[in-house]
């Protein structure tokens, strides 16, 4: 059976799956040694999971499609998940490639190839939905590629800038 280490809002929980669903649809898990019964709808994608019931507590949920956060009536909490059986940490997201998070128009480019940038530093302005949106450097480094110029429109996920 699977064992996972869940870090949620900075707190760690070891979760072990211990039983397949009973006739009522509840699944048994052990969380830090404690037995819990959980019901969850069967959904194709994570972000369509709308609810869960843990013992007698219902939850209305939004779960990020990449499981980086979970949102409930208690707010939105960061998640990190580690599979203890395969002993592989899921890779931290974000390399040095800056892609277009939405389709839009490049309003300004604030960096040049060869320039050193710090994580969080604005590198370009993308105009979309009548707004100017700053895109920032995902990490410290040196700009190795700039694929776009001002006035150019870009598609979703188009590679804009690379930081080496």
């Amino acid at each position, binding site marked *: 059976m*699977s064992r*996972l280490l*869940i870090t*949620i*809002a900075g*707190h760690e*929980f070891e*979760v072990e*799956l211990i039983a*397949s*669903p009973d*006739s*009522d*649809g509840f699944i048994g*898990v052990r*969380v*830090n040694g*404690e037995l*819990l019964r*959980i019901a*969850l*709808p*069967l959904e194709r994608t994570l*972000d*369509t999971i*709308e609810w*869960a019931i*843990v*013992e007698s*507590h219902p*939850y*209305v*949920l*939004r*779960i990020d499609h990449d*499981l980086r956060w*979970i949102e*409930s*009536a*208690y*707010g*939105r*909490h960061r*998640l990190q*998940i580690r599979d203890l059986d395969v002993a592989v940490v899921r890779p931290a997201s974000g390399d040095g490639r800056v892609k277009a*998070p*939405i*389709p*839009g128009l490049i*309003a*300004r480019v604030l960096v040049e190839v060869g320039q050193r940038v710090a994580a969080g530093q604005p590198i370009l*302005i993308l*105009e979309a*939905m*009548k*707004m*100017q*949106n*700053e895109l*920032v450097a995902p990490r410290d480094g040196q700009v190795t590629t700039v694929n776009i110029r001002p006035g150019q429109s870009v598609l979703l996920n188009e590679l804009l800038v690379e930081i080496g």
Partner: protein
Amino acid sequence: MFKKLLIANRGEIAVRIARTCRDLGISTVAVYEVGDMGALHVRLADEAFMLTSAQGYRDPRELLAVAQRSGADVIHPGYGLVSEDVGFEQACEAAGITPIGPGSGPLAQVRDRVEAITRVGAAGLPTTQPSSRSFAPEDGAALLAEADQLGYPLVVKSCAGGRGRGTAIARTADDLLAVVRRSSAQAQAAYRDGQIYLEAAILPSRYIEVPILGDVFGNVIHMGDRDGSIQRNTRKVVTEAPAPGLSSSDREAIWQSALTIARLFALRGACTIEFVVDSTGRHFFTEVKPRIQVEHLVTEMISRIDVVREQIRIAAGLPLERSQDQVYLEGHAIFCRVNAEDPWHGYLPSPGRIGSFQLPGGPNVRVDTYAYAGAEVPVRYDSLLAKLVVWGATREETIQRTQRALQEIRIGGIQTNLSLIRLIIAHAEFVSGSYTTEFSRVRLLDALPLPPAERLRDLAAIAALAFLQHTQTVHPAIPQAYTSGWHRESRRLPD
């Protein structure tokens, strides 16, 4: 009364206008850019014409041509787009088609914000202190000189303005030019006009709005007041009516100023007179919004007045239905502006296909939206997705109900600012009603309260199970009842 109304707008406000027209039995003509072809505002209209010119919804000539072609006798421009375009209003008037608005004369006067403040000041009313003229972002030296005269902190505002974009605070001379550059760029993106002006900031202060109605006979009434101090990313996201924390004498005074200003400009239709109120309760006129606003919903709830209906009646030359004493303001209302954006990632707009879409219901809750499950949030337009408004007999009851309604809304498939709004409504400064425009500096997303330990444990367990389900390790068996709806059938044998 009019026979046929052209809706020169899109999205939520176009839907809103179509609804009132149907309530009044006026037929409607929608326009759409190709990307809005199947949009709700098109479906709810009686006729619909595609806009083919490059400027689309912003093209006064094509809008007027469609109006003439379809035989419309009145045009409602909504907010944004051509709603404050003096040339458009004049062209409509010249073509014999009534434009819904304050009249092209008053519109021209209030559109020049610096000039409007000067005129109100000259009439003996308190105003904010604006720069002597407007500036382009390149006017660095002149800007710095003017700023020194006005004194810091300063508000940088877009001349084309409206809808909050392009407004920002410069607290020192070091900030000024960067703030101006950013404001101007935002205004350019939103309104195609990068001119800005300065205003001496009053801090802390509240931003108080007085919505008014004026008819062609010179009758003017107000519909109470609203507090629009709570902004995020330079936009009003929560507005309430009545404004909390105004003494009844200060409230009465601000209403009277609003009526005087409305008469000064001979405003017609639905307009809003906006003020900055300092910590002692004194008010200072800052600008006129010469059109319906997103926040008018909150006024509709406490007055039971359908503002769009009144706009149409006034444009038709009818006198106001109510005198000031017949405006009954009852209870309290809170308005939340739900945007398709991600407050956790710099308010990045979030277009896409809406997945789940569940709205709150029950007594005294209203949601106006163009969206539904399966609808597309287009990338080309403003991120306003839905307007939530909640009414209650008291402010306390209204806050509680707003929190309930916010828990009920579920919008999936795209990111929204709902979680941010939930934090605002639950925040101690909001609950106490003591907030000011400085609330925008509270970093709501940084210090989230933790749930009780057991609930955090449950969420961890849910996340684990969701992960396992997703990675195919486990499939929760759906009980038979889920799929067939016919579980444990032996129970159902006759008793």
